[in-house]
């Protein structure tokens, strides 16, 4: 006799079973669809945004992300617990569909059966293991949430429903199997192919056939009702993430990474700028709130949250959702809170780790745009002063623009105005032009270029701030003013290739400037130098250096540049002792998001926290690749009283000391 089982055993395959079952199923589908249609009305309160171009690629990404659970598993535990649970439950779902397909269609209408023989044995074994895995994982998630209670993890009514419902469905599934096996399979070799069911069957074997059949029937219908209940609850509980989160993989921003929308300054009809009300956000912004499962991975990594500032990226997203669904006329900025919005350093840790593809940073900047452009508000007078200084002198430090190129006098470096025949334009940036500590980095870079025989020029007093800190603070108008001037100047010289040692300038010129007509190649100095070293044009001697390395947010998470700087450090003889939070988990220095312009008034100092992390590696040198980081580390090391133990240096300085003539 071929291995198989009677589908609908004991329950009966008649209309008395099928009709209510399918009616309920159709009803549940209806509720599901209706629930989501209601939610779509709320999403539609937001502005238009096209996120269905390149449909094939989007679909591929969504399917891959969902099935492989790759973003979820990035955080091993509890990511893997969810992943295994998901696969387990997924297999059970497929298994149920296969059973329905055979029992209610292929067998019923065409007499075709495939759940038999070896296939059936493997089928049952797989589902048993899947079910067990799902229960164990669900159990562990339950323990984590309700017993270990990780800090910052909120548990709501939804969570109780979800854990309870799923647990009940899974366990009753095995009760049903066990009851059936207790009557039909105990003592047979087939039973070993359903090991978990066998355990349940053995445990129930004392009930007698009538008892077992009753138990089986009742539990079968109960399990059906639970499953129907589960489907109906999807739009109304956090279960909706099954659809919304996977859909968010489809609707994801396909890049360039972290790029903000470029406002149209010519639009004379525009009456409002930035986001003050729900209707100023896009539908995707509202949809993001629905995709959020409150896993708090963003919050865990937020440098502001971790230094007692009121910003939690998760809370911002949740609040936007609450507004959208409950009080759509609410004032966004008042509700979220100005201190919350100004605390963000745009480090991207939230958006990078989010397994639901939520875009936190753009929303914060949109609200900042409203505060700055519509109200003329800033986090402090010092920021307004920096904006005005930039308007007058093209740099937030308020130093006379005419002396921007003075740092290069000693090097006899020519500006493009003096000699436009260069291999690369070195876009220096404000800090490397005016701040003594960072001038040393610019000087080092020039020395390296010359040692490699690269003809390099600068714009000197014609260079203006790239506009990045202003843009991130929300002052889109001032950013575009600076950007257009820079682009006009660079295009005027026919610049083909720009290299910059500031990751903020790099990110802005290579991404943001494209919307304003800048097409030249833009390279980060670490990539540029790595190439020179690798090709042998630049010879660096290896001299021992024990150090730790800080991945800046703007080379790291924003641009994926992790390996090149490490290769350079190794070529220079550096032995890197990595900090716990390195690579994409690097902890911000605090100066991004335009916050280099602002005082840090709330909570504790982010830069001190980071230098303490560096100091914990016991390495005597902290190597970085960004003028903001270098400035923050100089300040932070003094503030943390670590001057004897830690010295901050830039990669360019380390390499320049090792030039082989």
């Amino acid at each position, binding site marked *: 006799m071929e291995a198989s089982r009677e589908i609908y055993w004991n329950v009966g395959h008649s209309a008395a079973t099928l009709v209510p079952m399918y009616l309920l199923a159709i009803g549940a589908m209806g509720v599901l669809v209706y629930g989501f249609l209601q939610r779509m009305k709320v999403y539609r309160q937001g502005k238009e945004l096209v996120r269905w171009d390149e449909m094939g690629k989007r679909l591929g990404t969504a399917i891959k992300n969902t099935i492989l659970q790759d973003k979820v598993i990035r955080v091993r535990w509890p990511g893997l617990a969810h992943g295994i649970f998901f696969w387990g439950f997924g297999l059970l779902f497929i298994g149920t569909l296969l059973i329905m397909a055979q029992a209610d269609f292929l067998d019923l209408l065409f007499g075709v059966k495939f759940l038999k023989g070896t296939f059936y044995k493997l089928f049952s074994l797989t589902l048993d293991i899947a079910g067990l895995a799902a229960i164990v994982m669900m159990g562990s998630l339950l323990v984590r949430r309700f017993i270990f209670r990780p800090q910052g993890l909120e548990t709501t009514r939804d969570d109780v429903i979800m854990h309870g419902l799923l647990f009940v469905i899974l366990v009753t599934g095995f009760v049903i199997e066990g009851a059936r096996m207790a009557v039909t399979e105990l003592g047979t070799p087939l039973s070993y192919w359903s090991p978990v069911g066998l355990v349940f069957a053995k445990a129930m074997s004392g009930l007698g056939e009538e008892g077992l059949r009753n138990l089986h029937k009742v539990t079968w219908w109960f399990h059906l009702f639970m499953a129907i209940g589960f489907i109906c609850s999807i739009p109304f509980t956090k279960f909706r993430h099954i659809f919304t989160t996977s859909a968010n993989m489809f609707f994801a921003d396909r890049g360039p990474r972290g790029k903000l929308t470029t406002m149209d300054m010519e639009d*004379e009809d525009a*009456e409002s*700028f930035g986001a003050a009300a729900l209707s100023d956000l896009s539908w995707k912004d509202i949809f993001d709130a629905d995709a959020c499962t409150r896993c708090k991975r963003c919050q865990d990594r937020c440098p502001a949250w971790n230094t007692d500032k009121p910003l939690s990226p998760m809370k911002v997203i949740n609040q936007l959702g609450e507004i959208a669904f409950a009080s759509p006329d609410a004032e966004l900025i008042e509700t979220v809170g100005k201190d919350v919005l100004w605390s963000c350093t745009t480090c991207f840790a939230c958006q990078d780790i989010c397994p639901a593809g939520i875009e936190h940073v753009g929303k914060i900047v949109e609200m900042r745009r409203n505060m*700055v*452009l*519509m*109200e*003329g*508000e*800033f986090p402090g*007078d010092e920021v*307004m002063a920096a*904006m*005005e200084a930039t*308007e*007058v*002198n*093209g740099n937030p430090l*308020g*130093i*006379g*623009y*005419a*002396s921007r190129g003075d740092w290069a006098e000693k090097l006899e470096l020519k500006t493009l105005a003096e000699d436009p025949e260069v291999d690369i334009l070195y876009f220096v940036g404000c800090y490397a032009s005016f701040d003594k500590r960072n001038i040393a980095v610019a000087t080092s870079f020039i020395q390296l270029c010359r040692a490699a025989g690269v003809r390099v020029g600068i714009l000197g*007093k014609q260079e203006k701030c790239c506009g990045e800190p202003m843009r991130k603070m929300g002052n889109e*108008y001032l950013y575009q003013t600076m950007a257009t001037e820079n682009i006009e100047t660079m295009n005027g010289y026919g610049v083909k290739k720009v290299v910059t040692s500031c990751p903020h300038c790099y990110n802005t010129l290579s991404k943001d400037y494209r919307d304003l007509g800048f097409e030249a190649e833009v390279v980060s100095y670490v990539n540029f130098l790595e190439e020179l070293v690798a090709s042998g044009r630049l010879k660096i001697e290896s001299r021992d250096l024990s150090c730790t390395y800080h991945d800046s947010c703007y080379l790291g998470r924003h641009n994926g540049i992790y390996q090149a700087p490490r290769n350079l450090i190794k070529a220079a003889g550096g032995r890197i002792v990595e900090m716990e939070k390195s690579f994409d988990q690097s902890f911000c220095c605090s100066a991004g998001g335009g916050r280099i312009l602002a005082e840090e008034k709330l909570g504790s100092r982010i830069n001190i926290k980071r230098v303490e992390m560096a100091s914990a590696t016991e390495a005597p040198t902290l190597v970085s690749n960004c003028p903001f980081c270098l400035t923050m580390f100089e300040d932070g090391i003094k503030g943390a009283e670590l001057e004897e133990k830690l010295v901050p240096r830039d990669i360019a300085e380390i390499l320049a000391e090792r030039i082989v003539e």
Partner: protein
Amino acid sequence: MNLLVCIKQVPDMESKFKIDAAGTWYDNADLAWRMNEYDEYAVEQAVQLKEKTGADLTVLCIGSDRVKETMKKALAMGCDRGVHVADDASSRKDSFSIASIIAEFAKSKSFDVIFTGMQSQDRGSGQVGVLVAEMLDIPSITTIVDFAFDGGKIAAKRELEGGVKASVGCTTPALVTCQLGLNTPRYPTLPNIMKAKKKELLSVPVADLCKVEAVSETSTLYFPEKKGGGLILEGDVGELADKLIKILKEKTAVLA
């Protein structure tokens, strides 16, 4: 009600100054320009008064075409209209002739309150405001750090030395000169920047308004010799202290 605020475009004080060819003023090359800082407070106060009373607010500025950029900022802060007195040689005029240009413009217009900065950051003589008031024969209050207006009466606080303030008052028409810290000048919002582009900005040739000669002139402009010239002192602590005290007595008024 009609209001007037007089502003000046000055070089940013962080600029590297050079003496011009004539040796009597600074050269315009390599300078960044901005609104005189004191005038920012004047514009802000004028706009606040305009918002409170619904008055019409005119901003006046004397200088070359270059000053229009600065006037646009005043318009973006809230002034209704601008009057640009076109004068490429404004830097060669003195406080007296500048004041007379303004008085000539204002005399027929019955402004209720005229706001000015208490001095300019470049010339810094602090005379124009009071001179305009004297020419128009209206009361004036200088160095205000507080301003209130109610039914034709001004109540202001003057900032005196040592952080002391004096409460003073007068009735309109009147002129006030504004000190730093009077208020917090607003950052122009984008809609206002865009509206400013469309506001009326008339250019009047200076010859139409300047009927007098300057009564003083700059004979020579130069860099003062650097006090101490970046002196480096090393040695015994006691001797160093004595040396430093001597230098402070000679080079500063601090130990007088």
